[in-house]
């Protein structure tokens, strides 16, 4: 719905991608305990699935509001993804006939990963320029929200606290990986000699909205959380949650940059030559 002007449309679009990314990221992380049998993440499995379902609802609402994707098959994929998630949450929560239920949750997890990939592509989440970074940033945002929400569900369970601390470490590692992948992708794009790619990178790094990249994405969204997460061997739950909040700000800035640059280049006449 572009009635609110281009800025409103851009924000709706970014918010839609943001919530979809968190949902898919939390869903991908839930495959660690349910599909890949990572035992230490078992206590967080349900929280991951619930986070995924909770953030899918605003993503669906924002999709309807922004109408960023009019393709029917995307709607079908959303339907399939929602059904998979609801099924998984139901089976994970009821804890009856654990063995068989877990098998079904595992199968749904595998199907879900395959279903969400075209969903991300159809929603414009994986543009050609930064495919790897986008996938890692979905995991990052999903993990970050799970860590942010964990203080709400942890009462006094030491084991759960340890698990969240481990997840915060994984989020930190993913953030480091994403920064390296981003650097690699920027260098590849600059070295490719393709004018549209170079124009995009220039717009992000030194364009009028460069503060979004340097201020929000790099300083607030990467350096501050890395300092908070890796300042010592034991990081408190509160510090981890604050770091993860900043990571979410950085992911939002990353998506804002993507949509911003895309629409600016399209406005110039699609060639994107600087």
């Amino acid at each position, binding site marked *: 719905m572009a009635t609110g002007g281009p800025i409103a449309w851009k924000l709706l679009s970014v918010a839609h991608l943001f919530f979809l990314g968190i949902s898919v990221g939390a869903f991908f992380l839930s*495959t660690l305990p349910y599909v890949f049998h990572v035992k230490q993440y078992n206590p967080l499995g349900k929280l991951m699935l619930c986070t995924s379902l909770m953030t899918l609802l605003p993503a669906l609402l924002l999709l309807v509001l922004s109408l960023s994707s009019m393709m029917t098959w995307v709607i079908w994929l959303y339907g399939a993804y929602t059904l998979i998630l609801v099924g998984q949450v139901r089976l994970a929560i009821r804890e009856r006939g654990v063995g068989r239920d877990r098998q079904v949750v595992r199968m749904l997890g595998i199907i879900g990963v*395959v279903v969400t990939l075209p969903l991300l*592509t159809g929603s414009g989440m994986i543009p050609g320029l930064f495919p790897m970074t986008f996938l890692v940033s979905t995991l990052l945002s999903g993990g970050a929200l799970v860590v942010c929400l964990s203080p709400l569900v942890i009462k006094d369970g030491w084991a759960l606290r340890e698990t969240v601390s481990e997840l915060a470490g994984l989020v930190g590692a993913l953030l480091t990986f994403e920064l390296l992948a981003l650097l690699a992708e920027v260098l590849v794009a600059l070295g490719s000699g393709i004018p549209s790619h170079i124009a995009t990178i220039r717009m992000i790094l030194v364009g009028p909205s460069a503060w979004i990249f340097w201020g929000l994405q790099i300083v607030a969204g990467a350096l501050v959380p890395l300092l908070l997460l890796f300042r010592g061997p034991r990081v408190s739950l509160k510090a981890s949650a604050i770091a993860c909040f900043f990571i979410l700000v950085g992911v939002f800035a990353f998506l804002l940059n993507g949509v911003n640059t895309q629409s600016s280049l399209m406005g110039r006449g699609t060639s994107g030559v600087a």
Partner: protein
Amino acid sequence: MGAVAVLIFSTVAGSIFAFALLWAISQALKLTEEAEEARELKIRLAEVKAKEELRKAA
């Protein structure tokens, strides 16, 4: 037709990459857990040995 081919390719390639990434993460986490367990076992073994030596000395 071209768009469909790109979509199918990106889905297949993306799925392979996503599964590979998740598998790599899971392996790294399992290794970390095993290392942690081994460390705890070592500490426990050292404690048992120390207790045994104390008992013998007494």
